[in-house]
C-alpha cells in the first residue's frame, strides 16, 4: 500500500520532466533531422555556460535552434551554419573549437601531458633499475643469509 502511495506521489514529477521537453521541428528528410540533432548537441548556449542549445531552455537557445533548423532546410552545410554562429557569438558557441592561437594550448595539452607522463614513468623505471645493482643484490643476499642461514646444498 505504502509503495503505491509513494509511486502516486512521484507521478507529478514525471509529468514535469515531460513538460520540460523543448519544441520539435519538422524536417523534410531524416538526414536533416540527424544533422540537426548533432549540431544542436555541439553548439553551446551563449547565455548559460555549460549547456548545449539542445538542452537549454534559454530564449537565446530557442532562437539558435530556430536558426539551425531554418538554415538546414535552406540547404546550408554544417560548416556554414557553425561559421554563421561563430561570426556572431564567437568560438564560445562551439564545444569543439577550431585550432587558433587562443585554443592551441587547449588542443595540445593532452599530447603534452601524455609526453610528461611518459617522462615521469621513464624516470621512475630508470631510478628503480639503478637501485637494483649488483651491490644492492649482494647486500640483500647477505642479509637473508644472516637471517635464514646458508641454503642447503
Amino acid at each position: 500500500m505504502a509503495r503505491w502511495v509513494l509511486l502516486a506521489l512521484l507521478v507529478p514529477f514525471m509529468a514535469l520532466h515531460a513538460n520540460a521537453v523543448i519544441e520539435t521541428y519538422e524536417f523534410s528528410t531524416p538526414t536533416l533531422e540527424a544533422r540537426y540533432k548533432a549540431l544542436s548537441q555541439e553548439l553551446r548556449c551563449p547565455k548559460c555556460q555549460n549547456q548545449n542549445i539542445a538542452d537549454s531552455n534559454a530564449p537565446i537557445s530557442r532562437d539558435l535552434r530556430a536558426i539551425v533548423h531554418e538554415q538546414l532546410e535552406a540547404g546550408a552545410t554544417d560548416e556554414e551554419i557553425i561559421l554563421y554562429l561563430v561570426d556572431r557569438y564567437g568560438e564560445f558557441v562551439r564545444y569543439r573549437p577550431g585550432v587558433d592561437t587562443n585554443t592551441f594550448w587547449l588542443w595540445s595539452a593532452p599530447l603534452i601531458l601524455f609526453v610528461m607522463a611518459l617522462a615521469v614513468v621513464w624516470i621512475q623505471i630508470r631510478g628503480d633499475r639503478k637501485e637494483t645493482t649488483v651491490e644492492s643484490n649482494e647486500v640483500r643476499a647477505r642479509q637473508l643469509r644472516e637471517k635464514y642461514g646458508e641454503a642447503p646444498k
Partner: protein
Amino acid sequence: MLLKRFLPLGAFLVLVLLLVRGLSLDPTELPSARLGKSIPSFNLPVLDAPDMRSSEDWRGKPALINVWATWCFSCRVEHPYLLQLAEQGVTIYGLNYKDEPLKASQWLVDLGNPYAETVVDQSGDFGLDLGVYGAPETYVIDAKGIIRHRHVGVVDEQVWLEQLQPFFEAD
C-alpha cells in the same frame, strides 16, 4: 636532490597561481565576436515614429547602443543611470529587443527617455546579427560605426568610468 625536494612546492605554487587566476575570471563575460567590425546592416522601424533607420544613420559620432526590453528586469535597474548619461550629452541609441512596441512606448513615458532614438527589433534578427544573447547589453560604436566594446549587464557609474567612457575621450 635539492631540486627534487622543491619540485612539489613549485608545482603547488603554479597550481595556486592558476586557481587564483581562474577565480578572478568571470566566465559569463564574453568578448563580442563583432569587436572591430561595423555594426551589422539593419533596416528597422523607429519606436513611436513612422520612420525607418539603417546602420548608416548611426554613423558620425561615437555612441552607445543599449539593448533593452520591458521584460528585462535589469534594464529597469540601469535606466536611471542611462538618463543621467544622456543628460551629460552621451548619445545613446536604443535597441528595443524582442518586445512589444506599445509596452516599450509606455515604459519610456513612465520612466523617461534617455535614447536619441530607439529602433524596434521585434523578431530579434538584428540582435542575433549583433551577437546579443540577453538584455541588457550595451555596445560602444565609434564615429565610423565600428563596434569598440560590448558590456553585458547593467551599466552603472563604475562600468561607465572604467569601460565605456575611455572610448568617448579618444575621439
